[in-house]
């Protein structure tokens, strides 16, 4: 049974050092299947919040339920497993492992997690990688070194890796900041399409409000956070 809430953070307090909290979140709810735009100025703790949602960071206080599991009650390896099996993540830039090819980069989540491997549409991981990469218009670059790709191409490879094996949650941290304006719309379109295909909830973080109207739900970090950063 699918929990109606993909993310539910409550009374979360986090600081990199225990006595100096940098982020306090009263409540953050993201419903399953929604596309959510989370915005806030640079340095407002967006990436820290994503660290909490993905379980890379653990709050000093509060609860942090993601995809039906309370991250604060899980061991570090369990959180890592949960993240890798159920979430796709796209950074602003440098998403890719520089020493792997496009094909190897995209296939990585399937090699690390059985769940991702089981969820593929094609018959083999390799075919699924080819299908996704073709879907994103990069089929001629499959076996290239990722360092030889343009930034836009790299970001699209990052999408492919984030959605392979149908993770339930896709998180994008300023993924369009390194792209020029006319590419942003295309990128966003593509991201929406593949997230829909994967039936994933999308959390899109940006300081750029020009993209905001494309999303069905918008959350300002300043509203949910009693932020101290």
């Amino acid at each position: 049974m699918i929990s109606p809430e993909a993310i539910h953070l409550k009374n979360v307090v986090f600081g990199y050092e225990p006595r100096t909290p940098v982020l306090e979140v009263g409540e953050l709810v993201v419903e399953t299947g929604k596309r959510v735009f989370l915005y806030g100025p640079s340095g407002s703790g967006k990436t820290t919040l994503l660290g909490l949602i993905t379980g890379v960071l653990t709050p000093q206080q509060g609860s942090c339920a993601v995809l039906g599991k309370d991250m604060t009650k899980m061991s570090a390896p369990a959180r890592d497993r949960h993240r890798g099996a159920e979430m796709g993540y796209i950074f602003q830039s440098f998403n890719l492992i520089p020493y792997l090819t496009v094909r190897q980069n995209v296939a990585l989540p399937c090699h690390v997690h059985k769940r991702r491997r089981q969820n593929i549409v094609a018959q083999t991981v390799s075919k699924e990688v080819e299908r996704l990469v073709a879907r994103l218009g990069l089929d001629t670059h499959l076996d290239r070194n990722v360092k030889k790709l343009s930034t836009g191409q790299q970001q699209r490879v990052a999408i492919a890796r984030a959605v392979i094996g149908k993770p339930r949650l896709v998180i994008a941290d300023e993924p369009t900041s390194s792209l020029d304006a006319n590419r942003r719309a295309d990128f966003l379109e593509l991201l929406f399409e593949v997230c829909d295909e994967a039936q994933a909830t999308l959390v899109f973080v940006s300081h750029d409000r020009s993209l905001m109207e494309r999303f069905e739900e918008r959350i300002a970090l300043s509203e949910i956070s009693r932020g101290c950063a």
Partner: protein
Amino acid sequence: MTVLRLAYESLRSRMFTTGLTIFSIALSVLLLVGVDRIRQGTQVGFEGTLSQTDLVVGARGGSLPLLLYAVFHIGTANNDISYASYQYFAHHPAVLWTIPLSMGDSHRGFRVVATDDNFYEHYRYRGDHSLQFAQGSRAEGIFDAVLGSAVADQLHYHLGQQIVLSHGLQASFLKHTADPYTVVGILAHTATPVDRGIYITLWGDEAMHLGWENGAPPLTAIPESQIHKSDLQIKTISAFLLRTKSRMSTLFLQREINTYKPEPLTAIIPAFTLEDLWSVLSAADVALSLVSGAVLVVGLLVMLTALYTSLNERRREIAVLRTLGLHARQIFALFILESSLISAAGAALGLAAAYLVLFAIRIPVENRYGIPLAMVGFSARVAYYMAAVVVAGALLGFIPAIRAYRNALVDGLSAG
């Protein structure tokens, strides 16, 4: 599995620095293993040169020089021993056999050893190997010569060849030109100093020096055809090898020889004297091993530097791997694996190179320096070196790995 693959690809992408690091570790392993293998190779080689001989007897003097010149053709005899003393011990009731050796002449850098049939009959090396003839037969006549296999190979001599021997061991002006010797036999390869000798009869040795009593050639050389065994009297030899009928009597016989009244003699037990040699050389061995060890430390530090300096540019990579669900522990493992793979590759490469070098230099060293160098297999010490290199590499990997682990936990997703 994924982590191993990542470590491999990561190293491969930094082919140049990885290669250099592997090379420097391989070089130090080559030195470490090479020194050890050469040490053991020479020991096995020396010990294999002479077997079944209980005592080596020469004029009164140091035991090591005696062993070296009598058996390994290294150095020279200070004094001769009288043939009468030799005869006395050759017919001693406790003695099974003796091999007389008379040295002092050479031919184009190879030693001439005057001996008798006992040499071909009784000489044993590497356990129970006896001397075999590749061609021809024993030297019987006064001017017959038998060549060791290396002599025949290097000088391209064949049966029937006439050779002229020089007086003394260096290529000398004083040549016994009046008395050329004829090659009547060539010994099969033994991989011992025997290969580097030219063997003539004791009569031949006396004949060569007939009229040389003043240390210089006679004014009028005596033609070869006029020299007969009956005219010659063997007066001295340089040393002799001896086997007792019962090993039990070796020590008694040794004491009897050492206290032999008519002439001051020295009898040594070859294995004991070789032990002395190794203990002398072990200091050099230790010194070389220490130097090699220092080179190894440098090689490992090169690796540490390479891995550590790459850490900063790899923070982003670590963050990406974390989002993919790799535990911080797996990040740790990635770095440990990288250092282990480098040191294991370096160790394997160095080991292979050491054996290759040993194989390549074995024959030249034997031919040029007369040092028998046996091809020796793996030893506990080599296995220990290998394990030490890989373990040290893995342990050094902890330093960047701990940093990477901390980065993975502290940076979260914000690195870069």
